[in-house]
């Protein structure tokens, strides 16, 4: 019997020890204001997180040069980062609880997993600003605490179809999509809808399981319908292996997607042959900083490229602007700790100074209309042999149709 009680005591000691160090610092009213950022720094979405972190760092440094005043005192911003390991439901939720309960953080930027955070937000509501997720149907109706600082996928997918029909003469298109991946499922529905409005036929829609490594069945089904073009529906890390096997299977026609692949990722994932695999490849998403007409975006792009030696994706602009948006909201709310006041202020601020994304102001110059801040969208094409992208079409959309498209001249020819 002695051993059993001995073991119970050891278990008790360990529990008690971890309970003792439960107390956490959290007060936020010093001059440095702490906010949170939960990003996918590893896992299948790891092509997105690191770039966001780089941009957030640049944004915070730019903001802290002048600082911002709240309650009569000049404040600077500090971001506490957490990696959700592309699995919001496990590591993301834990990080959210750590920030809200232990670190008492009032506002958080995040990338994916909106629906998994909703239950926790019901228990302890705080404003969460999404700087990435444009999956369809939108995340905003999941909870009043969620804000989105980018155009949702309905604002750019129509551009793919419009450009394909007008410039590539596409009459039928096959879609290869990742089953169960939220972004992919939204895109697939939108492509079908936009194809209908543009008069392009959907030749075939083929699925592959997210965990699979051999896509020959999906590729076979998609190509059997003899399409003029193929649309790959999901995020970069998922579609590039499919693109490689698609080219290996002998398909040479145009490939369209909305994953925001940059040249560095293409080379890392596709290997030495990346240039030939990426030939005849078109991406429709938010405007890219490098090809944007907005001067602030262009100078940010050059600074980012110089500092991180990496091609800036569209999400870098929105991540860069997050600190400015938070600072503006805190100043309006005149509080750095009260989540409710900050959330209310977010809906009342205009487009803040120092932002680079070229936000399209709503009526009354407000940044957020219906908790959504929008930018223009763009179709970009791969420059063969130049390891870069060129702008093929800049456009905006109104209820699902492309409006005032602009076709810049071909910079990589």
């Amino acid at each position, binding site marked *: 019997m002695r051993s059993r009680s001995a073991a119970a005591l050891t*278990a008790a000691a360990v529990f008690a020890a971890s309970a003792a160090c439960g107390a956490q610092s959290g007060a936020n009213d010093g001059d440095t204001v702490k906010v949170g950022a939960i990003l996918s720094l590893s896992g299948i979405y790891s092509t997105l997180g690191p770039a966001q972190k780089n941009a957030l760092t640049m944004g915070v440094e730019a903001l802290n040069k002048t600082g911002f005043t709240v309650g009569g005192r000049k404040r600077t911003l500090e971001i506490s980062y957490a990696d959700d390991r592309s*699995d*919001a439901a496990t590591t993301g939720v834990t990080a959210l609880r750590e920030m809200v309960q232990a670190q008492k953080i009032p506002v958080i930027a995040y990338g994916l997993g909106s629906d998994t955070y909703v239950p*926790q937000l019901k228990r302890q509501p705080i404003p969460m600003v999404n700087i990435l997720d444009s999956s369809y149907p939108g995340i905003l109706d999941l909870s009043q605490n969620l804000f989105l600082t980018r155009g949702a996928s309905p604002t750019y997918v129509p551009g793919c179809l419009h450009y394909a029909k007008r410039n590539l003469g596409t009459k039928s298109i096959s879609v290869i999509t990742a089953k169960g991946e939220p972004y992919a499922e939204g895109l697939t529905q939108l492509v079908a809808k936009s194809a209908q409005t543009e008069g392009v036929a959907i030749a075939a829609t083929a699925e592959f399981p997210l965990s699979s490594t051999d896509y020959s069945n999906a590729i076979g089904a998609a190509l059997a319908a003899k399409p003029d073009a193929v649309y790959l529906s999901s995020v970069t890390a998922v579609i590039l292996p499919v693109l490689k096997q698609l080219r290996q299977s002998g398909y040479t026609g145009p490939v369209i997607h909305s994953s925001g692949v940059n040249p560095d990722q293409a080379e890392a994932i596709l290997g030495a042959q990346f240039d030939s695999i990426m030939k005849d490849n078109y991406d429709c998403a938010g405007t890219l900083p490098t090809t944007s007409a907005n001067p602030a975006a262009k100078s940010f792009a050059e600074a980012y490229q110089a500092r991180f030696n990496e091609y800036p994706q569209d999400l870098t602009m929105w991540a860069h602007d997050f600190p400015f948006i938070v600072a503006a909201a805190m100043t309006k709310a005149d509080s750095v700790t009260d989540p409710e006041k900050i959330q209310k202020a977010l809906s009342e601020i205009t487009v803040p100074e120092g932002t680079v994304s070229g936000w399209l102001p709503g009526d009354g110059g407000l940044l957020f209309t219906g908790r959504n801040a929008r930018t223009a969208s763009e179709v970009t094409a791969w420059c063969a042999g130049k390891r870069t992208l060129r702008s093929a079409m800049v456009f905006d959309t109104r209820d699902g149709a492309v409006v005032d498209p602009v076709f810049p001249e071909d910079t990589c020819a």
Partner: protein
Amino acid sequence: MRKHASALGSSALLSVLAYLALTGLQGDQGQVALLVVVWTIALTGLNVILGLGGYPSMAHAAFFGGGAYLSAILLEKGLSMTVAAVVSVAAIMLVGFLVALVFSRTRGQYFAIGTMFFTAVAFLVFTNAAEFTGGPTGRPVDLGYSLDATVVLLAVSVGAGLAVFHLISVSRFGDRLRAIREDEDLAQHLGVPTARVKLLAVVVSAGFAAWAGVLFGQYNGVIAPSQFTFVQSFLMFVALGLGGAGRLLAPVVGALVVIGLTQLLNLGPGVSQIVLGVLFIAVTLLAPNGILGGITALTRKVRRKEAVA
């Protein structure tokens, strides 16, 4: 009665400690406390089929996930929390019955590999039946119990689970299970209905795991397939072995070591897992009947030295 007192005493003590840990700790540490408590409840069930019966069931993470998902789906369909919980546990026990039936004629490595594959297929269902399970990124769980009620239920379940295990362990069912573990054929020739006893043990273990899944879903608010993979089944199997399969407190020690190590020791991607790997091998080689087995051996050696000195 004295023998029961210390076992039931420790169970009650652990319930109190679980409550303190769950309410006292916040953020990351709160998550560690949650996982340790939930795993303890699940491993107590595994302790019946693996600890007593010696059958290496690798299906445990599937039962754990099944409980969580089924309760979430039933809640979404509008059932009340208690009904959803009871129906989920009962349904998963039925699944456990079917799994045990399918693998009833296999033993040892075959049973382990067969049940491991069951978990792999269950993972596929969790990942691909997106309209119910929300697909690979998981799904939110409606909050049937309040947070406080969930915490109380978790704490009580730890103690109650261990007490039930103790009663099973000293009952004829426990004797029969241990006989199967020692020599199944001899046990059958001494009158033990081995097929029926194994079936019941798997069903009981599935019930524990499902209940742990229901409570985990209620506390965490969200569940995802990555928490119920065959590697998780493996980790549960080895956690119990580390603790000292068959002993009352093996689930507590096993959960503390495995969860504590993977969550607290994050020195960078992978390092905590490497340390866990080394620990598994060390304990398996040095203390074949786990940490608790090692402690008992040590105390017995110390006592013998005192007697000699």
